[in-house]
Every structure is written in structure tokens, then in C-alpha cells.
């Protein structure tokens, strides 16, 4: 395991009652990067995350942590976990529960209080310090929960759907905070079904479906591997070239431009040459990257959604 790898998941399998939740899954998470953990509901994301944060153990394979030299010490104290299903003690003061969570992560005493206060300040929640959870709005509770995830300054942050339930202003705010954390060399894993968010934040991704890895790597690699065979085109006098099936497999017309699907073996360059040769006047010629959403739909064959969250709720750990 090289030095820049924070987390290494090796051939991990987890079964429940004959049902395989995760099947020989392997991936590495590099230090100081944002790692997107993508997949439809029921794919095995939560099961994998629970194994990473040490709630359950894999049946087969192993999980190694780069911050544990020679595997010594407790990984749990170096990880901050924000579960998808969030909760706080209803009738306890905010500062008291944050202290408790910090203490369980091995951070106690005045040090903990100092950090809690500075985080409350940062989140603009200082005046709620001595209030109870029930006095706070849902969004505020989300932020409190986030503080409990980062208060012990973990090396690895594992966030399960971190933006659900936040308004757009707070989403931007949280992204800003995550950028700061990343800038300090911390590693962030987050799972989401919002492909736009993943596309914007992630350096690396993994897509799993039906308990297996579908694809993975850096965002760039993934997109390149998926291919850049889409051209957004606007121009006149191109009918002959567009009709040539040896060059273009398919044309999809939009209101003011056309989407050209390159035929196999044809590069964007050779199409451009053909168009110029045909005397086309080009006002737009853009190689379009596939969006993560496109890749998701292509690979998983469904729209990412949260509709069956209830069904997954009873999935065993």
C-alpha cells in the first residue's frame, strides 16, 4: 500500500442470509482527494460504508487504512462518519451531545469544547450552543451533525448523502467547508445519488451496481474511457456529410443545434476535416463530454433516485 493511499478496500465481500450485499469489491482512495461513491439504491453503498467506518466487518477480504502505521491504533478515531439517517439526542443541549460524540472519538476535555465552539462559530450556530435539538430547524440539525463528524479532525471523512435536506445556500456553504477540509490534506468519501454534485466535487469515483463495481477511477479517466463520441454542431451546408453513415451514426436535432454521434472508429478530427472539405460554414463544433448522469444511466440502466429508500431501510447491515 503506497503512502498516498488513505483507504484500500481489497476483495471485500459481505453476505446476509444468503443475500450478497457486496461482492469482491476492490478500490483505493487516495489521500487528499474527494472520492465519490455512486450507485443506485440497494447497490451495496451503505453496507460498504458501514464496513469502512467499522460498524460491521467484511466476511471476506480486508480494509486497510493508510493513516494507521503498521495497522496500529484504532481506525475509528481517525474517521468522521456522517450517516445518511441522521439523528441527535432530542432533549440534550447541543454542546453536550457534541462533547459526547467527540469523547467517543477520543477527544475530551477543554480541547473538545474549544473546537466545538469554533465550529459552531464557523457554522453560524454559536447562539444555539446551549439549546436543545428540538429547538433547532432541520437544516441547523444537519449542520450540528456535520460538526459531530469533523470535530475530532479526522483524516478520513465518510459522508453518506451529505447534502440531502439542505437548502441551496447551505449546500454551497457546505461545499466551501469541504473544500477547506480537503485543502488541509484530508480525504473525503461521499456517497450521493446527485450526479451533478458528484461531477462538481469528486476527483475520483466508483460506480457500483448490484453489489459489484461497475467502473472506477479518476473522473477524467472514467469519462475518457466512456468515450467522447458526441459533437454539438451548428452550421450550414453540411447535409451530405451528416447523411454519411460511415462518419456519423446518428443525428439528434435540438432547437438550435444538432447532436452528432460519431460512427465507430471516427474521431472528432476526421469529422472536422470532412466538414471543412465539404465547404460547411461552422458556427459551433464542440466535443461533448458525457455527463456522469449519462454514464450512470448507461451503466445502471435506470434513473438515479431515492424512490426506494424505504425498501432499503430494512436492508440488513
Amino acid at each position: 500500500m503506497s503512502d498516498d493511499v488513505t483507504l484500500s478496500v481489497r476483495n471485500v465481500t459481505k453476505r446476509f442470509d444468503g443475500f450478497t450485499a457486496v461482492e469482491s469489491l476492490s478500490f483505493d482512495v487516495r489521500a487528499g482527494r474527494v472520492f465519490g461513491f455512486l450507485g443506485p439504491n440497494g447497490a451495496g453503498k451503505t453496507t460498504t460504508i458501514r464496513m469502512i467506518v467499522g460498524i460491521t466487518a467484511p466476511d471476506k477480504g480486508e480494509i486497510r487504512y493508510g493513516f494507521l502505521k503498521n495497522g496500529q491504533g484504532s481506525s475509528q478515531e481517525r474517521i468522521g462518519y456522517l450517516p445518511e439517517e441522521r439523528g441527535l439526542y432530542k432533549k440534550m443541549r447541543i454542546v453536550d451531545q457534541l462533547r459526547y460524540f467527540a469523547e467517543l472519538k477520543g477527544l475530551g476535555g477543554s480541547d473538545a469544547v474549544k473546537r466545538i465552539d469554533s465550529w459552531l462559530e464557523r457554522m453560524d450556530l454559536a447562539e444555539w450552543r446551549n439549546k436543545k435539538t428540538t429547538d433547532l430547524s432541520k437544516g441547523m440539525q444537519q449542520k450540528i451533525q456535520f460538526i459531530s463528524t469533523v470535530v475530532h479532525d479526522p483524516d478520513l471523512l465518510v459522508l453518506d448523502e451529505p447534502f440531502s435536506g439542505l437548502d441551496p445556500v447551505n449546500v454551497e456553504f457546505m461545499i466551501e467547508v469541504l473544500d477547506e477540509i480537503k485543502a488541509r490534506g484530508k480525504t473525503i468519501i461521499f456517497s450521493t445519488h446527485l450526479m451533478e454534485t458528484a461531477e462538481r466535487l469528486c476527483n475520483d469515483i466508483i460506480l457500483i451496481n448490484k453489489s459489484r463495481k461497475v467502473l472506477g477511477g479518476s473522473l477524467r479517466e472514467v469519462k475518457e474511457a466512456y468515450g467522447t463520441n458526441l459533437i454539438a454542431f451548428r452550421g450550414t451546408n453540411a447535409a451530405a456529410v451528416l447523411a454519411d453513415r460511415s462518419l456519423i451514426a446518428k443525428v439528434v436535432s435540438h432547437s438550435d443545434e444538432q447532436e452528432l454521434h460519431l460512427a465507430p472508429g471516427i474521431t472528432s478530427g476526421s469529422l472536422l476535416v470532412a466538414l471543412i472539405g465539404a465547404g460547411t460554414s461552422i458556427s459551433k463544433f464542440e466535443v461533448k463530454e458525457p455527463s456522469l448522469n449519462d454514464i450512470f444511466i448507461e451503466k445502471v440502466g435506470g434513473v438515479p433516485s431515492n424512490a426506494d429508500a424505504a425498501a432499503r431501510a430494512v436492508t440488513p447491515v
Partner: protein
Amino acid sequence: MQKFLAVVKHEYKKIVYKWAFLIGTLLFPILGAGFAVVPALIFSIKGEPIRIVVVDPTGRIYPRLVENLSAEKLSEKFDKAIRESGRDSGTFEGETKQSAALLASGFVWVDYDAGGKSPEQVRKELNVRAVADEIDAYLIVPQNIAERDARFEFRSRKAGDFVAEKTLDDALNEAVRSERLAEAKIDRKLLDELSRDVDLDAKSISESGEEKDSDMLFIASLVIGMMLYLSLTIWGQVILGAVVEEKETRIAEILFSSARPFTLLFGKLTGVGLAGLTQLGIWVASLLGIGFFLSLQPGLESVFKSLPDITPIMVVYFFLFFLAGFFIYASMFALIGSMVTTVQEGGQFAFPPILIMLVGFYFCFAVIRDPNSTLSFWASIIPFFAPLVMPVRILAETPPFWQIALSLVLNGLAIAGLVWLAARVYRIGMLMYGKRATIPEIWKWIRQA
């Protein structure tokens, strides 16, 4: 270890630093004090004496009545009652004199001349004097006291003073009876001598040969059994609520990512147990305090002399068995809490441990009746019942030390087994949302590595 202590501290503070705990804890001693101390204080306040007129045309009842209500006569009567109850009257001498004097001073005899007035006129005049607050009551003695239909009229403005009325009634009966005996020429002393009760001395004998009064022992044992039963039920429910809260709010997920489930569960049990111990400590201390206060009250010393002796080692045993019971029942409640989804659902499933506790509580009665029976032995040894039964048995009749030690060891083993079982269900059940676990599922979790 550090995490375990964090959990213990968290659970303890969560309960003890609450108004509900303070109120609940103080309510018991305050109610106890209310029932024990306040009546003692009120009865020690002397009421207004009754000013009473006795109209006695026979002239033979009035003097006897006044004599019967004198301090000397009342004191004599009390002494006799104590002797008949089988106790040594010597120890109560000061008290009986005191209370007799108190009772006697409650009557002031007002003179009234009824000479030549008709009964109606007498009544009218006395009613007027009563309304004018010159007298409080009057008694009209009929002419024909020896006959069956003789009617004594007692009219009083203080109809509610039942203590005075009862005393007067007794004294009047006594007076009339002795008058009738005198008329029939029967010697009063001889009659008393012949109609004396037999002396049945009812005391239980402990193994060390001491004698104890069984009434007070029964009450004291019942109080101990009740206190244990109530505490175990209450604290079991607290555990159930705390476990379900962490499951319902999904806090369990964060907790499990920070510490081992066993550490969390055992820390929770210990923290809540310490809170229970705190409450019980306050209760025992206030019980001793109330007892001490009452023992200083005149007239109640006798009750305390008959109380069973409570030695410090008994208090230690009491707390040890409370802790054993707590861990046994609390781990059962924790197991139930981690298999249900809401507190209400947990309440429905709480009946098995409560039923077992109730059976244990009923065994206490058998133990009080016969602390050395085979049933008492087994009930105070077998885990589940022992934490309720053994303290009662120790109080009633301390068994040999090996039995207490055996009971503690067996309960310790039961605790180890139950906590292990509860931890296995807890670590999986706490992450199962949406539906209640079935018994086969729980069996599977227990066997799962």
C-alpha cells in the same frame, strides 16, 4: 476503557442532571415524611378541651365517670392494656402517664343545676348555652340505668372529635357497668380477675435465638421488597427508553462507528445503574432519617424497639442485590429495546421481565412467612427471583453466609450470560430499521459471529 467511562458519564448525567430525576427522587422521601412525620406532629399538638355538662338524676354515674376520666385511672387502664398485649409495661411507664394526663386534660366538667326542671327544659337551656359557646357538650343520664332501654343522650358541638368521644364512651360504659355490678352485688375485682384474657406471647425466634416482633418484621420486609420491585421496574423502563431513542434517532449508527457495541451497551447499563444506585441511596438515607426522627417522638419509641435490627452489612447486601437485579433486568430490557422500533412497541414486549419480577415479589410473602423453608431457599438462590427475595430473607432471618455468597455467584453468572446475549442482539438490532425483529431472527443474530 476511556470510551466506556465516557458512555457511563453520559448516561449518568443524562438521567441525574434532570428535574424529573430530582423530583422523582425527592418525592418518595417527602411522601414518606408526609405520611410518617406530619401526623406525628399534628397529634402532638394539644386540642382545646371539651367543656361538658353531665345531667345525672341518679347521682351515681357522674362521680364514676369523672373518676374514670382522671389521669390516674386512664394511666392504670393503659398499663393494663399493655400488660395484656404481652409486653413489659415497665418500659412504657413514662409514656402512659404522659398520654393519660394529656387525654384527661381534654375534659372540663361544668356544673349545672337541673333541680326541678323538665327534661325538655334542660335540653333547651343546655342547647342555648352551647350555642353561646359556654359549653361544648352535654350528657343526660337516664333514671333507669339498669334497664335495657336506658338511653344516654350525648350532644356535642364538636362532633368530629372522635378521640375524645371514644374515650368518653369507654369511660361511660365502664361507669354504668360498675354501677350495674354494684346493684347486682357482684364484686368488681373478682369479675376482672375471672374474665382476664389468656396470655398468648407471639414472637418469632431467629436462628441465633433472638426474639422479634413479627408484625413489624412483615411491614419492614414488605417495604424492602416493594422498593426493590419498583426500582427495578422503573430503571428497566429507563434502559428500554434510552436504547429505543438511540435506535429511533439513528444515533446508534454514529455510536457504533465510534465504539464497540459491547462497550456502549455495558457503559449504558453501568451509567443507568449508578443513577439508580444514587436514587436508592437517597431513599435509604431518607428512610433512615425519617426513622431517626420518629424514634425521637414520644409514644413511638415502642414501635422502634420492635423493628428488626438493620445492620450495616444488611445495607451492603441490599445494594449488592439491587445491582444484581438491575443488571439482570436492565439487560433484558436493553435486548427488548434493540429489537423493537418504538417505545410503545417496547412497552408491549416488556411484560416477560415484569412478570418474572412480579413472581419474585410474590415469593417475598412466602419468605416472610417462613424464611427457612425449601421454597425460600430456592427463591433466594435462583437468579431473576433472588435479587428481590434474598434481601427480604436476609431481613426476615439472615441465612448462613454460604447461601448469600452462592446466590451472588449464581446471579453474577446470569448477568454475564444475559449481558453477552443482549450485546449480541444489540449490535445488530440497533441498525435494523423499519420493522420489529422476530424471535427466529434474534436467534440467528445471537448465533452469528
